């Protein structure tokens, strides 16, 4: 038998220590090779005499072509600077970055993630950007609302310039919807609540099919022998639950911490969270969501949709082109269901560009990342990007380019336009929180503990801040 594999690499943007994306990594490697032509135009060439060489690192192979194009344009306009671009896979990226900081041989500027940058700030390896070259002329208003806030430290200084953002929506295969007797319109305007799951759960029930072909909302349905789950699940669900439980929890009015950013008290013991998590993992018993371990890393959600073993999936905007390129999958995009607070809620996360505190070429690096945030660069990136650049101009370019491929991505962008977003938890100690909470989420998924048992884990997390 041949092993199915996503035809394009899913962007590795899981939490910091989430289970290794080996298979995705190998796919990303293939994409890296595909992008090597572009890479060579920057990385392989020699710096012209007299130009200052700076290093720029990023991990996302899907972003490489877009950023290479923008950086080529930058070097054209700034012949005194030569940028060496390096792309590394997600796992290696952070290991190598840390090692290079210890060896004081890191990049001058690099793509940064919210789960990592608080640690870097407290270790003193990322430079505050205020007062650096042209960066003071990059106003926070230029970006989607709230993005710059995510990259601002507890001291009020900026440690990153937003480069893109992502939100969550429902992705599904239109063919499977038709088989279930549903239309794409049926997925618009769904509602959800933690008690009975609302119309959203009814849709999941309709889409779930057991071994005898009985659907989840029909008599005689066997939840133990499901061949197609209503909602797909990945191989691990972490403390952020970005593409899993977080949209539901947010839509009850729940927040991760006591503060919008830099919170010091987590709310995993809140009754709204407990109700949400019990509903979410309760779907396993109903057969609507796969049990723990059923789908390993070889079968990510897009592969489940393709194989027909799951009908719809909650996933991030960075995955749109991955789903769209799956053979035999007629991709549809629907908004998240609205929750008890009356509207849908999506997690709002974004990557940023940071500058190393060790760099001796901060001015030049600042000029580069200021350029990457400019309208001109954002348009270049947006046109090539399978993701949403951080500014309005860039987002519009990306939405247009998706529309040209026949994909309406507004279920993703509407969340931002309507202000229906909750921020990615920007906190200290994220690696420790990750490792404490992973046990809790694994055990809840396996049905060994209840949502109420999260309180003791929450205490351990909060103890990190004392």
């Amino acid at each position, binding site marked *: 038998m041949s092993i*199915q594999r996503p035809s394009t690499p899913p962007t590795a943007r899981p939490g910091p*220590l989430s289970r290794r994306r080996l298979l995705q990594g190998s796919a990303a490697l293939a994409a890296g090779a595909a992008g090597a032509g572009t890479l060579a135009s920057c990385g392989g060439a020699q710096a012209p005499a007299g130009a200052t060489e700076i290093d720029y690192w990023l991990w996302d192979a899907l972003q490489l072509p877009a950023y290479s194009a923008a950086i080529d344009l930058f070097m054209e306009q700034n012949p005194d600077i030569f940028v060496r671009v390096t792309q590394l896979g997600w796992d290696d990226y952070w290991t190598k970055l840390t090692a290079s900081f210890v060896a004081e041989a890191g990049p001058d500027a690099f793509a940064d993630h919210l789960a990592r940058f608080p*640690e870097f700030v407290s270790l*003193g390896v990322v430079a505050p950007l205020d007062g650096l070259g042209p960066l003071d002329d990059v106003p926070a208003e230029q970006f989607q609302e709230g993005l710059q806030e995510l990259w601002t430290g507890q001291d009020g200084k900026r440690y990153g310039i937003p480069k893109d953002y992502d939100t969550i929506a429902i992705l599904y295969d239109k063919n499977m919807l038709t088989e279930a007797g549903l239309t794409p319109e049926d997925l618009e305007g769904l509602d959800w609540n933690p008690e009975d799951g609302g119309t959203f759960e009814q849709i999941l029930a309709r889409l779930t099919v057991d071994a005898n072909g009985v659907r989840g909302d029909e008599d005689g349905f066997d939840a133990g022998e499901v061949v197609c789950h209503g909602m797909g699940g990945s191989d691990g669900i972490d403390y952020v639950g970005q593409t899993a439980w977080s949209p539901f929890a947010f839509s009850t009015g729940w927040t991760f911490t006591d503060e919008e950013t830099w919170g010091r008290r987590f709310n995993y013991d809140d009754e709204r969270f407990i109700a949400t998590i019990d509903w979410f993992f309760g779907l396993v018993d109903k057969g609507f969501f796969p049990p723990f371990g*059923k789908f390993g890393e070889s*079968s990510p959600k897009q592969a489940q949709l393709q194989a027909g073993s799951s009908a719809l999936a909650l996933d991030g905007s960075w995955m749109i082109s991955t789903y769209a390129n799956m053979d035999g999958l007629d991709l549809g995009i629907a908004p998240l269901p609205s929750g008890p607070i009356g509207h849908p809620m999506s997690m709002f996360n974004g990557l940023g560009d940071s500058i190393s505190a060790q760099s001796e070429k901060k001015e030049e690096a600042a000029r580069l990342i200021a350029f990457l945030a400019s309208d001109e660069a954002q348009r270049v990136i947006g046109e090539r990007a399978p993701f949403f650049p951080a500014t309005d101009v860039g987002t519009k370019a990306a939405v247009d380019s998706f529309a040209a491929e026949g994909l309406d991505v507004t279920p993703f962008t509407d969340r931002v336009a309507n202000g229906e977003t909750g921020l990615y938890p920007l906190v200290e100690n994220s690696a420790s929180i990750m490792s404490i909470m992973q046990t809790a989420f694994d055990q809840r998924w396996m049905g060994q503990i209840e949502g109420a048992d999260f309180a003791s884990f929450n205490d351990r997390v909060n103890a990190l801040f004392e």
Partner: protein
Amino acid sequence: MTTATTSTRSAPPRRRKKDDTKLALLFIAPATVGLLAFLVWPLLTGIYYSFTEYTTLTPPQWVGFENYQAMFADPVFWNSLKVTVLYVLINIGVQTVVALVIAVLMQRLTQSTLLRSLVLAPYLVSNVVAAIVFLWILDTQLGIFNIFLQWIGFDPIAFWASETWVIPTVALVNVWRHMGYTALLLFAGLQAIPGHLYEAARTEGAGEITLFRRITLPLLRPILALVLIMTIIGSFQVFDTISVTTQGGPADASRVLQMYIYQNAFAEYQFGYASALSVALLVILMVVTFTQYWLTNAGKSDLD
């Protein structure tokens, strides 16, 4: 020729002694430098770091026994110890029996060098490659082994994602990789047993089983003890297979000590605490090794 040899042999002994010392030092020097730089120095600094709070990017701060106190109160540490011991028991138990059987078969049944070297083949595959291959083979959805299970009428098993299966799975994957090597070591031990003992026993009417129990096993004891000491030390240090496949999950079911050390150091930047955990592992290994050495009387042979 003879004269030449004689003349070198009859060179003045005093001068030769002096030469020897210098030469010996010269020969020892590379190894000594290596030992000091790559073993003794890291060991000492590691022990020092275990008494500090250290993030690698900021200088270490002395905290006394704080890391050790935290370690003894850390449930994850005790759990990882339990998981590691379970792994070692399964890994070493199965591996030693399988390797012994292979070694005896190699000695008694075949003289073919090809067959004998073939046994070593899995050892030529790197741990990481072996882990990735088995990750695929045992995959719940697409793994060929699970497809086979379904074909003969069983439900697929989530080998990597079940708390019950994950440690036995990792242990057996590593048995597969190491059994040939272990068998080869034991085979070398078997070769040292004089053939006339078997002949004598067979004349007395002893069968294969009796030969094995009465001659092979007792005379193999020193080698077996040595092999056990080596493999147990290696087994306690299991890391790569787990790092590649489960990263310690599900929950904490495969979070072995080395994995926990790695996560503390390289994910959470707690190099001080990670060093304390490493020192604990060092102490455990020392105790295990010395106990074993003493129990099995590994220094003596029954042949003498």
